[in-house]
């Protein structure tokens, strides 16, 4: 393997979901479990949707919001939860606090908690992630144009989504790597930063990345 520190080594990843056995049938139960579930589970319910079967819900972008809207019919809470941008939080613990705050607020406004149908309970799920080497790398920014169209959904997830919790500066791998090349790539980095990963899917994120790299060579 090359030892050049400016190379970007392309990795791929795959997730496997695991049941936690924690199921909430109303908002109080959701709050209680949310206090104690691992941050791994919170991460899954915000980002795991990118790697599992689901249709885009134009209104609600995380599992907590979707459940609030469709299973306990709490639209105000669903809207408040949906607007949370997980990227804006420096840690998953901070995100947990925000979620709990919104749920507490909703409980304060609610006389009686609505019970979800027993088949519609909120299932807390966690995950394990397997990361593997693709034996591909790029040395120069212009090579990204060639390699990006060939990347799998797993690679896009790893470098663009997962990177944000791996990297201390919470940036994706592409911005971090291009940052090494200085001013000529500042505009490219800004354009990549403008791609909103939260309101999209991996296919569209990949298309946006390709377009960005092609228009900001």
């Amino acid at each position, binding site marked *: 393997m090359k030892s050049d520190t400016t190379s970007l080594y392309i990795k*791929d990843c*795959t*997730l*496997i*979901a*695991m*049941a936690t*056995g924690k199921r909430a049938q109303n908002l109080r139960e959701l709050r209680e479990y949310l206090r104690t579930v691992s941050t*791994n589970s919170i991460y899954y319910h915000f980002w795991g949707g990118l790697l*599992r*079967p*689901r*249709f885009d819900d134009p209104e609600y972008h995380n599992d907590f919001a979707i459940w609030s809207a469709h299973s306990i019919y709490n639209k105000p809470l669903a809207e408040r939860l949906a607007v949370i941008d997980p990227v804006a939080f420096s840690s998953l613990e901070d995100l947990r606090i925000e979620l709990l705050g919104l749920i507490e607020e909703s409980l304060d406004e609610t006389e009686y908690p609505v019970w979800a149908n027993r*088949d519609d*309970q909120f*299932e807390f*799920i966690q*995950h*394990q*992630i*397997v*990361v*593997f*080497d*693709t*034996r591909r790398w790029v040395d120069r920014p212009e090579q990204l144009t060639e390699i990006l169209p*060939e*990347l*799998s959904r*797993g690679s896009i997830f790893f470098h663009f989504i997962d990177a944000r919790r791996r990297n201390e500066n919470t940036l994706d791998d592409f911005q971090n790597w291009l940052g090494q090349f200085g001013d000529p790539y500042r505009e490219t980095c800004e354009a990549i930063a403008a791609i909103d990963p939260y309101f999209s899917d991996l296919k569209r994120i990949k298309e946006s990345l390709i377009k960005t790299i092609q228009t900001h060579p």
Partner: protein
Amino acid sequence: MLEKYAEVAGHDVVEHLRQLAEPLKGLRLVHINSTKSGGGVAEILYKMVPLMRELGIDAKWEVITGDSLFYECTKGFHNAMQGNPVNLTDTQLRTYEQTNRAYAQTSEAMLRDADVVVVHDPQPAALISSFPERKGKWVWRCHIDASRPFRPVWRYLRDFVGAYDASIFSIAAFSQRLPHPVYLIAPSIDPLHEKNIDLPIEEIGGVFSRFDIDSERPMILQVSRFDRFKDPVGVIHAFRLVKQFVPNVQLVLAGGGAADDPEGEVVLQEVRSSALDDPDIHILLLPGDAHRTINVLQRASDIVLQKSLREGFGLTVTEAMWKNKPVIGGDTGGIRIQVVNHHTGFLATTPEGAALRTRYLLSNPEIMAEMGNKARQFVRENFLVTRHLREYLTLVFALLNENQERIELGG
């Protein structure tokens, strides 16, 4: 074989599998279930095992067999896991345990030395008791909707299942609390299976004369075993409600028996009685290997129903969706993951609900076509065997690296 899958699922998907499987070359993995034909489990393994072998894994598929008492007992397990109160006799349970012990003796060396053993459903679940000194990781794979099992039977099975290193359920709602990691893997269909491959238009047309179906009239179809949980009588009820408004509609109920299902004949008689010799209700009892016929029927139909009351997953739903058909499915189990209400079909809880949605789609052919196209794309991205295989490979790494949230391979 993998190259052929690349053409359907995408070259990137297959390359991803090859890279993931690279460190697993030579791994000895054994799948055990109770039938080589009939039912979704056998269909999955039929292709999963050769694909694993092509990726370099030393994969085997073994089948436990028994006498009628064994199958009565395991059918009882199946019904009980889906929530039916079932009283199993001591004789049945002893036969179950004895059959498992006898099988364990005949396969002792292979199972003892395997790196990973995947035991499917309750039939072979007791095998683990015969291997207290096993070397590999043993996983129990539950294909059944076990969300609300009949507790006395589940407690009996749980003693065996709890001894495994991990278990797999199709969705979280089916899972039970167990003293080991519980993984979630949805099943899949094989796009290159005879049941799912593209067919010439003439062959599809030929099915009408073969089964005396009128090609000019709308046709709705349910493909499933004759099993009460699939609610074939409810489908006939829904059909009669549709017929009041769409008099020329036809219904095809196509099913076969599985080798491990002794109740099929009884349910078939109930269905025939309910049909009352209506010439527009076609009840087709097909052999377990009538894959191509099922493929033709699914392609020839306008709408596919899967009005199950309980469903492990419902691969017939995925199959129909792959053929661009909207599906009206029971609002239960894995059907809810596949049928995205108003996108790839509709969910219904009653014959009345199924009838209403059927009428709606028959009156709106453009919406029917649009839903069918969405359904196919949804299956391509989520329910093909390539995704299933990827998750099995991921599972093996997860098993070998317990308690690690992030597993980095190859440095």
